[in-house]
């Protein structure tokens, strides 16, 4: 079609080179983290490991799995991910179904209430006072209730529901189906892709959160996995030092830091697993970022 000029060759060379470097800089840290998690913790403190575990062991993982504190926070994270995603989908879709209802009275008024709500924020302290007033502090519910309505997904869901052909609803109504029945038997089954997208994004957000655990909870049994990791990071910025190595059991070779890295691998793993499915919804996802801006 066209001749490749010298400019093309030079451009392509540098373009591919730089992009390859970016890909390496992005992936290597995750790879290295996995390598260290399979290496003897005491041995890791000596440094010099780059591409492959030097003293291969599963001890970090078995130590993680047998530590009640880590396991507790692991289950709290799983629970908040599942319950949080469910609650958000439940309330957001119900409200969206109502808003998408044909000829609904006050529809415009209702809708603008939500839109304005997206831009209002009172700041951390007033929010804290409200949660305190509701008795949500130091309960599991503080993780999952405040996000029950996700306004961005509400807007997406309203437009999704509106695209469902009206005839399907009409004919169900003629067959004597009530609003509730139509919602559960017709609308929801037709909206599986929407529910999946919501579940994935809300779930990842829940799995990663730690701020609410730091702000609103001081009960050790309710800490999330990410919060537990934060505690270790804050304990010292140089956890590989001799002191923490000393504290480690010489037999297992597991240090506070090697468990921390193992926890990091465990925190990233579920995201890596759902990542291929998440990718389908990226363009919508970026809009989420921009409206929240």
């Amino acid at each position, binding site marked *: 079609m066209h001749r490749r000029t010298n400019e093309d060759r030079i451009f392509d060379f540098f373009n591919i080179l730089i992009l390859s470097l970016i890909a390496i800089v992005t992936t290597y840290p995750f790879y290295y983290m996995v390598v260290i998690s399979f290496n003897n913790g005491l041995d890791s403190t000596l440094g010099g490991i780059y591409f492959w575990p030097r003293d291969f062991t599963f001890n970090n993982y078995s130590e993680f799995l047998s530590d009640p504190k880590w396991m507790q926070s692991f289950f709290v994270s799983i629970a908040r991910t599942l319950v949080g995603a469910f609650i958000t989908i439940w309330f957001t879709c119900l*409200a969206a179904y*109502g808003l998408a209802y044909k000829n609904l009275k006050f529809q415009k008024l209702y809708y603008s209430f*939500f839109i304005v*709500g997206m831009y209002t924020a009172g700041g951390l302290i007033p929010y804290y006072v409200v949660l305190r007033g509701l008795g949500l502090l130091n309960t599991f519910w503080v993780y999952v209730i405040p996000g029950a309505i996700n306004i961005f997904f509400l807007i997406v869901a309203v437009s999704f529901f509106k695209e469902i052909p009206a005839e399907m609803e009409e004919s169900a109504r003629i067959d004597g189906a009530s609003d509730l029945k139509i919602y559960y038997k017709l609308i929801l089954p037709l909206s599986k892709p929407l529910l999946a997208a919501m579940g994935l994004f809300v779930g990842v957000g829940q799995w990663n959160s730690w701020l609410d655990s730091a702000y609103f909870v001081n009960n050790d049994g309710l800490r999330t996995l990410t*919060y537990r*990791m934060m505690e270790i990071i804050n304990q010292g910025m140089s956890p590989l030092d001799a002191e923490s190595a000393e504290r480690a059991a010489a037999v297992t070779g597991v240090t506070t830091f090697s468990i921390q890295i193992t926890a990091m691998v465990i925190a990233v793993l579920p995201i890596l697993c759902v990542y291929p499915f998440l990718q389908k919804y990226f363009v919508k996802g970026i809009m989420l970022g921009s409206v929240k801006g």
Partner: protein
Amino acid sequence: MWSSIKRQKYAHMFVLTGMLIVFIFQYLPMFGILMAFKQYSITTGIKGIFTSQWVGLKYFVEFFNAYNFEQMVKNTIGISLLKLVFTFPVPILLAIMLNEVKSRFFKRFVQTVSYFPHFISWIVVSGLLVIFFSTNSGIVNDALLSLGIIEEPIALLSDPDYFWGLAVGSAMWKEAGWWTIIFLAAISGLDPSLYEAAEIDGAGRLKRIWHITLPGIRGTIVVVLILAVGSLLGGGLVGSNFEQSYLLGNVMNNEKSEILQTYAFKMGLAQGRYAFATAIDLLQSLIAIILVFGSNYISKKTTKSGLF
């Protein structure tokens, strides 16, 4: 009218339930802003926001007179501006570079990989930073030492002079790939015949990028820029000013890492000075609002496109 509402009773019930939730968690905290001007005590609960004594601008004055006020403002604005300057152009460049890749497989691979850190918690990213840059056998210092490039380990995580760079660099690493999506989408919407015509006219790659791609996505650039300026104090596009200062800030680098948000957090939730912290938050929101409207105004004047 009542009969139609009655007929739609479930729809109204569902919407009103949703509105109640939004009212409690989005609208109600707005009233809490009053606390910034009041002698508020936490034991009085939500009601206390309205019933407590007015104190005027007392907390604002106290905040302006805090011993590290100047340094915190400097840090907040410094980190935010650096992030805007250095991280805003990167997604645009990355999108253009990706768009020029011929191999679809390679393009997809780099894209997929570069979005990934966006979905990872800052906790994990901070953990990675520690593994890589710790002075005790962190892999970067370790490698540089053994290669003889440096004699002393670089204290990236504790030396205050490195904190701003660390914040900007790590935020870029985490979020730059994510923001390329929006620019790539804009580029893929451009008319391919423009490129063909330019090529026939003898325009090279760089010329085509400069004269077709960049002007073509100008509208998107402006909109994203306004968003970035609007959230400037939170860290702009890449955000995370609070997370970084909270997680990577420590006793050693405190003078360069303490920002308004971490200070408000420490004063408010850690020390229980609720009204004082609310005043700091409010001041920050005011600056943010001014920035949004200001940048929108300037953008409308100069490029004739804006958000609203």
